[in-house]
């Protein structure tokens, strides 16, 4: 079934929440629409469901990898040319702990950043109907709509209080 994007722009959060309610009543699933805002709003402010993500796994994976790489670097470099300095053991735990600590945290940070980008579904192409007014405080409700329901959704968005409704020209919508 061919789908096209349709965007309703609202001046306030109440109108956008009403539009989300209408979409749900009209049998649209959460995957078929999204609310776009210019700043963070409290979770569920527009009646959208709880957002599931696995961000918390990323730092643990990164930390484990960073730890492993740091240990390998510590042991490998010192064993490959074992010079005794200051009478200290070749594999001395205190300095190894320091390098390993930094490596572990570096891995955790790198993977957290990757996790934020990945879980935010970035990078992505900006939809053609995206409206810059969203960063000026308007709230956008974007729907991936079957062609035959475009008029119905347009009416529904306007009835909820949309000040403007934009249709994606031709191509299939990806949101």
């Amino acid at each position, binding site marked *: 079934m061919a789908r096209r994007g349709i965007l309703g722009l609202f001046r306030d959060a109440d109108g956008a929440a009403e539009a989300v309610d209408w979409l749900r009543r009209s049998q649209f699933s959460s995957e078929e629409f*999204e*609310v*776009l*805002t*210019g*700043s*963070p*709003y*409290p*979770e569920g402010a*527009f009646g*959208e469901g709880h*957002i599931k*993500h696995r*961000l*918390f796994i990323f*730092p643990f994976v990164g930390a484990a990898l960073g730890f492993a790489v740091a240990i390998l*670097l*510590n042991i490998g*470099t*010192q064993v*490959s*040319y074992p*010079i005794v*300095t*200051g009478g*200290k053991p070749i594999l*001395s735990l205190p*300095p*190894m702990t*320091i*390098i390993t*600590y*930094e*490596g572990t*945290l*570096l891995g*955790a*940070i*790198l993977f*957290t*950043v990757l*996790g*934020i*980008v990945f*879980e*935010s*579904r*970035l*990078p*992505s*192409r*900006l*939809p053609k109907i*995206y409206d*810059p007014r*969203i*960063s*000026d*405080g308007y709230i956008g409700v974007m729907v991936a709509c079957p062609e035959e329901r475009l008029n119905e959704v347009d009416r529904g968005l306007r009835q909820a209080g949309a000040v403007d409704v934009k249709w994606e020209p031709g191509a299939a919508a990806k949101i």
Partner: protein
Amino acid sequence: MQERRDTSFPQINQDLLRGVIKTPIWFWLVLGALGMVVLGGAGAMGYLFYVGLGLTGLNWPVMWGAFITTFVFWVGISHAGVMLSAILRLTHAEWRRPATRAAEVLTVFSLATAALFPIIHVGRPWRALYWIFPYDFARGIWPNIRSPLIWDPAAIFTYLTGSSLFVYIALLPDLAAARDHTTGWRHTLYSVISLGFRGTARQWRLQVMGGILLSALILPVFVSVHSIVSWDFGMTMAVSGWHVTIFAPYFVIGAVHSGVAAVVTLLALMRWVFGWQDYIRREHFDALGRLMLVVSTAWLYFFFMEFLFALYSGESAEIALREMQVFTPPWSYFFITFLLTAYFIPVPLWLFRGVRRSVPLMFLTSLSVNIGMWLERFLIFVPGLARKQVFTFDWYTYRPSAVEITIIAASFAVVALGVLLFSKFFPLVPIYDVKEGEVFSTRIEVGRRKVPAVVREE
């Protein structure tokens, strides 16, 4: 947040993106002036590399001088970013909003500048490759991980990478806002680097959660960096005044002291230069002043502890060194100036609400702190080395040369230039954070008064 004025989203965009979209004449003038100083520094550096370290005032046994002092100074300044940004984010402090980006950016540029100094200091910077990078450049010899001089680059690399990524992630929504308000090549640039951010509920959730998570991860790095910098000295047993067990917390708290002061300096400049009186308000300086009162007093406690430990050790060399620092010119002049400027002039002034809420006074007192904190590091490193040897004929003093002074002056211009150029391409106040403050703010009636309040989501 009594002074907050309701501001619309378009107004916030217009105000905070003004510096990005329009280029006033002063920008070119300041850019030119800073560029000249940086070029001067680059010339001095080239001359130093060509002729050698004989151009500096360094001589045995004082082999660590103003370059290393400035390295530690800039690492200290870099601690402001994470201290303010991470702790204030984690505690949901409302007054963090205009300060976080400036603090994070200051961290990145000051840390990058700090990292240059040990490389300049070795005189033959290309040889730093053999010493720092874990690669067997010659004959299978790898860096010696038992040396603090390897821990240091490892910690700085981690901190610089983490801080830069932290800035970038927090910048994504603002890059999207810049994309929405620009045309032509700028629009294309912001479209690419904003990665297609469009403000879905999911993206905001991840932005907020990610910010908190990154803050929590960078905090332990922040503590480790200056601890490790202190061990560059603390692990050296041969120099009086260096081998001190409380150096790590003492350096960390000193770094926070100088770093927060540097953020105050930067915020005052941003308020004057960009006219952001509605965003960087007197109440923010007030809050920072209160924070600095606590931090500076904690720092003073560690300073006295460090001094006291040296005196209680009963070691004649330690006591002689302290005597020299406090009573022998020119060190005594530096010592008095350091104590007055780092603590005894600014801190009593910050006790007064009028001073904390006066932008010019906060600007001057924050500058005073950093003059003092530079001298503090100088007094830790140089006198100890000057009296490193037992015999008086091996004693030496140290005076930075013109080349060293030029390079150090240029380092201030490098950091200022970095922040200035950043402000040309990216907003220095987090736009989305200010907007979030607007969304979450309300007014509640308490008795007969209507007072501003902020809603916090758990």
